[in-house]
């Protein structure tokens, strides 16, 4: 009797062990039963593209006969289907070309030289410094989105980093102890949160991909970004150029990788921009819908929380 009891307890214990992921275990079980056959199938599928022997065509055809009519556009991530109107395509393509040349002929060589001269920690500090100056724009955006905890975080960050971070060169507030992460938001996202769409796609010379909605970032920065208050104008342009060179020196290779992997770089960058902005706006909306999410989730696991910038 006692043994039966042990058996039952063991059974319950093990059954409970699986209960945390009922959805997976329920469908994984039947598949595991015929695992040997499935392993055969899997290894077949792996080899098809590699070797062009016998008739891989038939194999691939057979494999997908059953789901020929499956519409993969309607997959689980369907909310990501994003398109943007592009009536200005000829102009945009020209600007894309212009920015591309600007990068390869001017920005990249300068940034590469700069990278050799200045060690990385110093360049990261410069980036932090400029990032700290972006505080007014981020603070206002948080307020306009009624994200008061975000605004408070930003205000705290600005104070701490300016005073203890030597004018923003260091970023002590995003460390483990304080854990005040930069609120990765801007005025374009703010409009997005209130339901304003992109409208159409624009590529600005120098500034790159944008839209009428996101162009408010450029306008806003003119008023909210301290370097633009430097007089005379050429000094302010010089500072902005330096910021751009410093930023580029930390990300040389990113643009090239994306461009090389693309079939049509213009379309690839357009799509990447739209996807990127859409997810940012979605993350902001998610954060507003769950105002306590910051307390409940650790920041790293919360998609709404901004990414850490060092």
């Amino acid at each position, binding site marked *: 009797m006692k043994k039966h009891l042990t058996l039952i307890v063991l059974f319950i214990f093990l059954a409970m062990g699986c209960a945390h992921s009922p959805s*997976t275990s329920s469908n994984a079980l039947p598949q595991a039963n015929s695992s040997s056959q499935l392993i055969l*199938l899997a290894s077949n599928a792996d080899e*098809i593209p590699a070797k062009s022997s016998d008739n891989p*065509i038939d194999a*691939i055809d057979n494999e997908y006969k059953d789901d020929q009519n499956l519409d993969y556009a309607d997959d689980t991530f369907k909310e990501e289907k994003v398109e943007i109107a592009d009536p200005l395509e000829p102009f945009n393509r020209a600007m894309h070309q212009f920015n591309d040349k600007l990068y390869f002929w001017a920005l990249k060589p300068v940034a590469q030289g700069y990278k050799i001269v200045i060690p990385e920690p110093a360049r990261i500090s410069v980036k932090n410094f400029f990032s700290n100056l972006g505080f007014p724009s981020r603070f206002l955006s948080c307020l306009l989105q009624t994200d008061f905890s975000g605004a408070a975080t930003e205000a705290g960050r600005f104070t701490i980093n300016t005073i203890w971070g030597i004018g923003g060169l260091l970023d002590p507030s995003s460390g483990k102890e304080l854990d005040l992460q930069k609120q990765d938001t801007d005025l374009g996202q703010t409009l997005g949160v209130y339901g304003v769409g992109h409208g159409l796609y624009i590529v600005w010379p120098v500034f790159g991909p944008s839209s009428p909605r996101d162009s408010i970032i450029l306008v806003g920065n003119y008023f909210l970004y301290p370097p633009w208050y430097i007089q005379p104008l050429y000094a302010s342009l010089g500072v902005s150029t330096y910021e751009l060179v410093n930023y580029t020196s930390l990300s040389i290779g990113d643009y090239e990788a994306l461009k090389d992997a693309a079939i049509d770089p213009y379309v690839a960058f357009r799509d990447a921009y739209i996807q990127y902005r859409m*997810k940012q706006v979605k993350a902001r909306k998610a954060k507003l819908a769950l105002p306590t999410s910051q307390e409940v989730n650790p920041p790293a696991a919360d998609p709404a929380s901004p990414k850490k910038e060092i």
Partner: protein
Amino acid sequence: MEKRIVVFCILIIFVLSIPVYAGVPMTTVEASVNRVLAVLRDSKLKSPAAKEKKKEKLRIIYKDMFDEIEFSKRTLTRNWSKFSPAERVEFVNLFEQLLEKSYIDKILDYSNEKVDFYKENMTSNNTAEIQTKIVTSSKEIPIFYRVTLKDGKWKVYDVVVENVSLVQNYRTQFNDILAKDTPAQLLDILRKKVKAL
């Protein structure tokens, strides 16, 4: 009697441990990524001459980790049916080469960055999203792997880098081309692209 119970217990353990093994997509991806990192950090393969050897090793892991047919199907979506079986084979092949050639140097560059696996989202019964990030000295790059359960194994069918889905990105490009060109012409463009890389 006692023996039978023991056998029965062992049987139960076996039966119940299978779903746990197959039900953790995160471990599958994490194991694959760790294998990649092990190759990248291998001190024996540090010399430039060993680059080809490294690539060969990475290719084996890649084949095991990714479902390239699913990848291709999801990028082509409706257009998949416009391709003849022979064209499909060539497309899958070319697309794989394109991805390998354009990203291998970027991957070989990584060595000491930390990869953080922090979240697993079940998006449906047989798909999941594994959220990871690469922590470099100057920034954090979020990379999400989307996996699907195929033949009892979790396979990656999409990679989302910095919020941009690779499948979605290529889908837009291919749609754009296929709106005016035939599949044969698309394959031609791909062939040239792969050769030029």
